């Protein structure tokens, strides 16, 4: 274990959390007076849903909040439904929403009248990684070997599977195509689990699944991880397969694909809420992050545990929005006005 990593990732926020508690407790801080609705702009069983329900479980188990936290799935229209609802609930202190990249991609691709600026940013919980996977029976050991084969095979002969259309997986695919000068046939499926299975069954040639979606097949030796799309390697050094840890997977940059992409797993709430309401939730998520269950979940899913709040978070989101707009514009995914 990397002691400094533990300190900075685990203890510091913990200290910060206690600090906040100590400071805010005497001032009769705001607390929820009724159940808090936790909107999930995705279906049951997906990545965001899992994380939200884990948080609900942690909050209940460790008694972190007097009122219950109640997850509600509003997945319609690639999540637009959930976002529109939170947008409409201006000033509601009892509603929070967990986001994924569809915070940016859905309004851009469909033209639904919604932007993250309609919400109050609360906290970035983590960043989700993407890994380039191929079937373990295929001969490609490095990203370069694979992409050379794709180039040699000619345009559209290799199939990249992903979740949804004009969303993060397809954006990454287009970015790879640009960076490596190749052309895939992108095949959209409804969920990450289905994509991993299709890859094991060799119905597609590669995927950009999140670690948690493909880890089971990786451990079983059915899939091979070629590279991760973060700008640094994943920090987890415990062996996951017989020979490899998450940390052994090179970044795509060092393997010669000049691009990176991570997905936001963050919390927002409706606009027009008081600062001490936001502080309450920031504090709550700090406590959640300090629990062993959360830490285990982060490691199992090889998440990037960057945590941000306040202005830093808002700035990050603004930057991510510009990045998505550029990527989607280049790919021709923006909705026609």
């Amino acid at each position, binding site marked *: 274990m990397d002691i400094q990593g533990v300190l900075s990732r685990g203890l510091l926020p913990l200290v910060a959390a206690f600090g906040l508690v100590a400071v805010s407790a005497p001032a009769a801080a705001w607390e929820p007076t009724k159940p808090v609705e936790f909107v999930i702009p995705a279906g*049951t*069983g997906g990545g965001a849903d899992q994380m939200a*329900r884990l948080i*609900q479980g942690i909050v209940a188990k460790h008694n972190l909040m007097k009122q219950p936290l109640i997850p509600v799935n509003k997945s319609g229209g690639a999540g637009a439904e959930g976002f529109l609802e939170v947008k409409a609930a201006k000033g509601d202190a009892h509603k929070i929403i967990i986001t994924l990249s569809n915070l940016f991609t859905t309004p851009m691709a469909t033209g639904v009248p919604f932007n993250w600026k309609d919400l109050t940013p609360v906290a970035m919980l983590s960043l989700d990684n993407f890994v380039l996977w191929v079937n373990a029976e295929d001969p490609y050991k490095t990203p370069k070997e694979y992409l050379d084969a794709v180039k040699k095979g000619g345009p559209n002969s290799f199939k990249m599977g992903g979740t949804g*259309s004009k969303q993060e997986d397809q954006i990454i695919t287009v970015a790879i195509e640009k960076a490596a000068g190749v052309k895939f046939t992108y095949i959209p499926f409804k969920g990450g689990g289905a994509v991993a299975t299709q890859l094991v069954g060799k119905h597609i040639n590669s995927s950009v699944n999140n670690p948690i979606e493909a880890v089971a097949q990786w*451990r079983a030796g059915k899939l091979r991880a070629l590279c991760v799309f973060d700008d640094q390697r994943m920090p987890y050094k415990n062996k996951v397969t017989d020979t490899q840890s998450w940390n052994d997977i090179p970044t795509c940059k060092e393997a010669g694909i000049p691009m990176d992409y991570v997905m936001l797993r963050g919390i927002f709430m409706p606009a027009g809420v008081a600062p001490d309401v936001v502080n309450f939730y920031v504090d709550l998520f700090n406590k959640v992050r300090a629990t062993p269950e959360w830490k285990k979940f982060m490691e199992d899913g090889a998440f990037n545990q960057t945590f941000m709040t306040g202005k830093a978070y808002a700035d990050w989101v603004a930057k991510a929005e510009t990045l998505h707009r550029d990527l989607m514009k280049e790919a021709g995914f923006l909705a026609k006005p």
Partner: protein
Amino acid sequence: MEEINALMHGFSVALTPFNLMLMAIGIILGVLIGVLPGLGGANGIAILLPLTFTMPPTSAVIMLSCIYWGALFGGAITSILFNIPGEPWSVATTFDGYPMAQQGKAGEALTTAFTSSFIGALFAVVMITFLAPLVAKFALQFGPPEFFSVFFLTFCSFIGMGKEPPFKIIAAMMLGFGLAAVGIDTVTGQLRLIFGWHELMRGFDFLIAVIGLFGIGEILLSMEEGLSFQGRSARINTRIVIETWKKLPKFWVTSLRSCVIGCWMGITPGGATPASFMSYGIAKRMSPDGNKFGSGVPEGIVAPETAAHAAGTAALLPMLSLGIPGSPTAAVLLGGLLIWGLQPGPLLFVEQKDFVWGLIASMYLGNIVGLIIVLTCVPLFAAILRIPFSIVAPVIIVICAIGAYTVNNAMLDIWFMLLFGVLGYAFKKLSYPLAPLVLALVLGDQAEDAFRQAMLISQGDVRIFFSNWLVGSIMGLGVLMLVWPLIGRGMAALRGRAA
């Protein structure tokens, strides 16, 4: 045998008083969830999942899977009593179950449904116990063309069997396909058929349509008979279970066929809903009493219930052994496994023997516990029909509204439910068939997705649907099912000439 030993070990894990208690609680909660339309198995488990974080994983999964069995059992209750399918896979159960209840045979219908469910589940569990690794590989063979072929087969085995005017059948089915297309297109991400109305983005959920068409539509129809109507004369007989059991063995062929269809659809993973429709359609085609289907014959309950339960159970196998959820409920359970710190996938059977075999043992026990609980309640359920209509009707409408809301947490859906109710009333009176509409709505977009994914793979070459033995033979079987009525007629004509 290795499996037997492992299973015995599993029983020793599952058979603690604490776990047995969890099983009973799980079944009862599951039945409740299954009865309330909208709050399906997947939602129910997602809702109760966080409560299990404090339990050991084996106990937790026992309780959650029992909720799942309970929901499978419970879906049949409202289908039979009120023509409201609590779960998508119970739609086919209404076709004969509701007429039976109308004829005063609710107890018999319920017993048939529960018993068939049990047999289907048992068959699937036995298969899981002994064939797990072998069967799991089969699921990997399924890419988009194979999925499309399964949907094709489902449609082929179901259509062309109605007595309604053909143009009305086409219109109703196409309306179902049209409704299924509303919302975001999976393949291109484009918004379809919403005309700028963003609330329509979520599309028309199958359950909203079903609750309206079947449930509300039925209440409106009953109203024509007037309010004097004081409840059905539900014969309440505590020995109804035994009496029904005596009649069931003669349906063994249908039952066996439905078990096979169900297991196959659960593993592939086509799911319980297509399994129930396909099984009903094929039973109708194959059975000597086929033309009586729809008027209230027990065989019309045996076929869909057996298949749905076999599929629902078999769907857990790919989840455990491959990490692919075979159904939405399995997907939520899968999330649960991850949260408890277990990794589903090929290694689960090796690394977590206690857990896996405890779960499999609990499938046997849970279904037995479930069967006992629901069968003892049959007279109680049947007695609900005795409550006067002027109390039951508003309560059903309230429950339907709640169900419609909980599917997507959307107020607008309640309005749509009401509209579908009016449509269902008019359609029934003008003999537009509802079954093809519902089937098209539930499978339409999945079939289209699979078709277009296959087209992306083959770059627009339709020959992909006959490119290997698996997809080719399923497609062939579909075509055979489509022309079966013609063959039957031809055979009859030949026989007539010979005589």
